[in-house]
């Protein structure tokens, strides 16, 4: 029985039927890569998986139980990285990350843990710098550093590699590999090749009406 | 004839009674006409859009 599965999912954004009849299943340690053209609903699906929006149809289940039964528990086990990098210009990088870590953990984390997470993306040296001086790539690294500071089961990444250079991309891949090794799961939408070995593919371009989008088990070469 | 004018005088309060009735008539009539016109406009637009939908090339 898969840990995280979606059956017959339908999504309506505004007044547009984005997709319907979508299904997927994920087990511990696995990764699912969402492909498809712009506007095909990748971000909408990720927002559904995060619980930000309710699916217009179908169910999302975690270990068999529908996530709608206990939304708080579902939120506690996932981290969502969207398009926007929420970084307050007036706060330093460390303060920004410490805030999100404290919100997630429910208590103030030691500064060392925060700096360690920043080091995972090689921006430990920027800890004391106010957010307004950071470049887009650096802001995205701070956002991704949240993945390193708060251990959770499910990562939902919406085009994580945008604005990242090669080195940062490599750090992200290493982090994802370690996460999956610990039994964590990742659902990511991307345009460029994310290079996750053994990742399953879900292409949202299949016409929505024709019987919906089933996950096709294509294993992406390592 | 004076019975009519005397009736219209409304015991001297004509200045308050008839404006009240008049305003009610205007407001309810305008609301009705606006709603009806909105419906006919929507129906016309639907017809136009469906015409475009059915035409083979998809353009009007």
């Amino acid at each position, binding site marked *: 029985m898969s840990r995280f599965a979606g059956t017959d999912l339908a999504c309506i954004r505004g007044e547009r039927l984005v997709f319907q009849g979508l299904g997927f299943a994920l087990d511990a340690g696995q990764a699912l890569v969402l492909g498809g053209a712009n506007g095909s609903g990748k971000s909408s699906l990720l927002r559904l998986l*995060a*619980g*930000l*929006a*309710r699916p217009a149809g179908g169910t999302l289940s975690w270990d068999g139980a529908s996530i709608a039964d206990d939304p*708080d528990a579902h*939120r*506690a086990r*996932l*981290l*969502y990285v*969207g*398009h*926007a*990098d*929420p*970084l*307050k210009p*007036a*706060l330093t990088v460390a*303060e920004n990350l410490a*805030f*999100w870590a*404290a*919100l*997630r953990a*429910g*208590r*103030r984390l030691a500064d060392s843990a925060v700096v360690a997470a920043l080091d995972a993306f090689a921006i430990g040296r920027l800890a004391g710098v106010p957010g307004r001086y950071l470049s887009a790539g650096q802001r995205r690294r701070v956002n991704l550093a949240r993945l390193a500071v708060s251990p959770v089961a499910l990562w939902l990444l919406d085009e994580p590699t945008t604005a990242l250079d090669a080195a940062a991309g490599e750090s992200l891949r290493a982090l994802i590999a370690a996460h999956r090794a610990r039994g964590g799961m990742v659902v990511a939408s991307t345009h460029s090749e994310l290079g996750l070995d053994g990742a399953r593919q879900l292409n949202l371009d299949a016409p929505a009406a024709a019987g919906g989008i089933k996950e096709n088990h294509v294993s992406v070469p390592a | 004839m004076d019975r009519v004018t005397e009736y219209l005088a409304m015991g001297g309060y004509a200045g308050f009674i008839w404006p009240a009735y008049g305003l009610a008539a205007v407001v309810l009539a305008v609301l009705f006409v606006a709603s009806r016109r909105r419906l006919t406009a929507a129906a016309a637009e639907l017809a136009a859009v469906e015409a475009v939908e059915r035409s083979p090339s998809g353009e009007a």
Partner: protein
Amino acid sequence: MNRFAAILGRDLRLAVRQGVDSLMVVAFFVLAVVLFPFGVGPEPGVLARIAPGVIWVAALLAAMLSLERLFQADHEDGSLELMALEPVALESVVLAKVAAHWLTTGLPLIVAAPLLAILLNLPVEGFAVLLLALLLGTPTLSLIGAVGAALILGARRGGVLLSLLVLPLFIPVLIFGAAAVEASLGGFPARPHLLILAALLLAALPLCTWAAAGALRQGLE
């Protein structure tokens, strides 16, 4: 509780670092009140008569000015969406933001009110009740305002819309706030008015928090 403190702490630190915002609110409050003697005439008797109402209306408008940005700033940079995904109830996010708003705008207004009472020649026996009424009234303004701010999230021309939504709901606070001060000036007991203000606050606390959280949840979908 410490998640509430985390959000409140961050907002207060932001407010301190961008201190100018709450100063501007107080500046508007003072300016709005100072305009009245020019409009109504400097005659002390008239000013004393209208002082409670003028101070309350100016406080109300000042509080409302800073409400539009209550959720807007976090909405624009994605923080609000992330906070909604953290294991913290949206209601406590709203409460933390309302507390931060009150501390950065409501409190400064109360501190500035006596100065303005002097400017408007308000008799001194009205000062204590004015401060007490503002102390009870301004949190309610922040709470009701939070509902409005949550509703207009992402709307076109949010500021104007916020005033249309929120000012009518401010009227009860204004009525009993000004009435409390006038009662104390006229030698009548201000206690009943203050009790009603307290009741409004106790009612607004759960209702507005719940409504604002609901509005945020709809807005973030």
